[in-house]
């Protein structure tokens, strides 16, 4: 058997390598699915503690408030979970595991794309858990809209994941820099997206900035989709925003991984 292994030359292949990287990245999740539930703590806190406040503030009933808030919480999963995924790569860069993959005959872009694609799995699982819990409290989503909404989140998540990995590749072993940049981007993006509070009553400059925030468009599209409206302009803008984030994220990420050593 060892003899049969001798003198084999393996050439990088983008599709095959991406698939293998993706499978490897999925393994810890499959082995330990509980870790996914654990990272849902934050969105659940928002849902459980912020939700009642929103009900009191808006004067609307719980179901109406949830219809507005749950899509935002789903986007929040992507922002907080996927946005932080680069820290895993950073840790692997510091411990040596990333270096090992750089010496393997793998396509460099595959190392990033495979990782970014993996983000779809936790996003979908976590979103379904949140929707399930919200349904207990009266939340209702259009089934096809939910499916499309998950697709939208997935595309957005691939882009955000790729950006998070790019940040890890750029900040190298400086964990503080990674978290510093990550946190100072994520929170403004979150607040300026209308996930937590509607921006309608906010100052003009805030609404102006929000209109350029891709997260706002993804959130609004998510609300429309889960409400069963497929053809609205919000949905179109949301898809455009998500695709733009995905394209930019992958382009930046592939550039960063090519330079990694």
């Amino acid at each position, binding site marked *: 058997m060892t003899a049969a292994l001798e003198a084999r030359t*393996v*050439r990088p292949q983008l599709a095959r390598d991406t698939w293998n990287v993706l499978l490897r990245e999925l393994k810890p999740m499959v082995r330990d699915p509980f870790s996914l539930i654990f990272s849902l703590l934050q969105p659940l806190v928002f849902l459980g503690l912020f939700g009642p406040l929103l009900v009191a503030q808006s004067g609307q009933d719980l179901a109406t408030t949830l219809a507005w808030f749950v899509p935002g919480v789903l986007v929040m999963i992507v922002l907080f979970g996927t946005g932080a995924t680069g820290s895993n790569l950073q840790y692997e860069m510091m411990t040596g595991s990333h270096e090992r993959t750089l*010496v393997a005959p793998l396509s460099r872009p595959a190392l990033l794309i495979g990782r970014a694609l993996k983000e779809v799995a936790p996003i979908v699982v976590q979103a379904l858990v949140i929707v399930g819990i919200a349904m207990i409290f009266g939340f209702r989503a259009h089934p096809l809209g939910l499916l499309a909404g998950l697709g939208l989140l997935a595309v957005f998540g691939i882009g955000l994941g790729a950006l998070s990995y790019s940040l890890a590749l750029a900040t190298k072993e400086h964990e503080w820099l990674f978290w510093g940049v990550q946190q100072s981007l994520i929170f403004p993006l979150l607040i300026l997206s209308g996930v937590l509070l509607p921006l309608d009553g906010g100052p003009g400059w805030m609404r102006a900035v929000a209109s350029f925030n891709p997260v706002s468009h993804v959130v609004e599209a998510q609300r429309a989709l889960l409400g069963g409206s497929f053809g609205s302009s919000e949905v179109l803008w949301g898809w455009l925003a998500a695709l733009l984030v995905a394209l930019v994220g992958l382009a930046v990420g592939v550039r960063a991984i090519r330079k990694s050593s």
Partner: protein
Amino acid sequence: MPSDTVISTQSLTKRFTVKKTEVTAVTDLSIDVRRGELVAFLGPNGAGKSTSLRMLTTLIPPTSGGASVAGYDIERDPSGVRSRIGYVGQGSSGSFSQRVRDELLSQGAFYGMGRRERTQRTDELISSLELESFASRTVQQLSGGQKRRLDIALGLVHAPAVLFLDEPSTGLDPQSRANLWEHIVALRARYGTTVFLTTHYLEEADRYAERVMVMDSGRVIADDTAATLKANLAGDAITLTLDEATHLARASSAVERLAGAGAERRDDRTLAFTAPQGSALLPRLLRELDHEGIRVTTATAVPPTLDDVFLALTGRTLRDADKTEPDSPETSNDETRTLEGSTR
């Protein structure tokens, strides 16, 4: 490149720019390594060992010069090199969240092995590196020695022509180090893999490597078997204690005559000197002294270590060199460890 040469470098050079100052980490490295050799790169921190290894494993490009590894040019065909080498860096090759077995299977897939083949190979390596008891644990749960054994297994999954090991035993306790070496030696005997490693553990290079390349300030300053290096460059350290102080001067001239080396007075009855093949010389010297009526009460001959070789070559010991060498930029995280295990 002759057919049995697996590593061949020509004037391989690497320069870095650190804070606008150019630092040459490796200068004109020209070496050939034959199939099946176990070669150790020995040198102090910042000598350029890791940088050389990183060039040979395609992690960083050389500034000038070239090299071919396992039949492929490191610059023209890095993926060819990658598919034929195994690399165990200074860190842990396994990802913290992955299970041991999963990492080996993934590694097999990375090297284009089919499902059956990689399962078979994983089982084989789990058995030969004795990973059974923790094969379903995650890497973060392993001890340092266990991680290192996994790293080596990962480096061997695809039966590489050359296995590069960067400081394989640094940070391990003596027992784990001995255990790791047993595995390296056994695996090499089994698969005939060429092993190229860096170390600053003198006694490891001495004991296990068939060929030692001493590196200092970016250059290879000696390249031979440890035994030859020691015999040619350092000699045995001989100490003689006489019964009477009055015999010291005569004994000293006998030493000079026979050993061709000046003897140093340790105290009024003790002489010390260093001579190539000193141990072989000692019986003759004792007979000669006896013949002259000089009685020797104790005689010791201490064989040289590679540290003595380094001292002879550079005028300083490896331990001292480690303290004074500035770290080259590429090695700041990997060559800043303390020198341990000096045999003197």
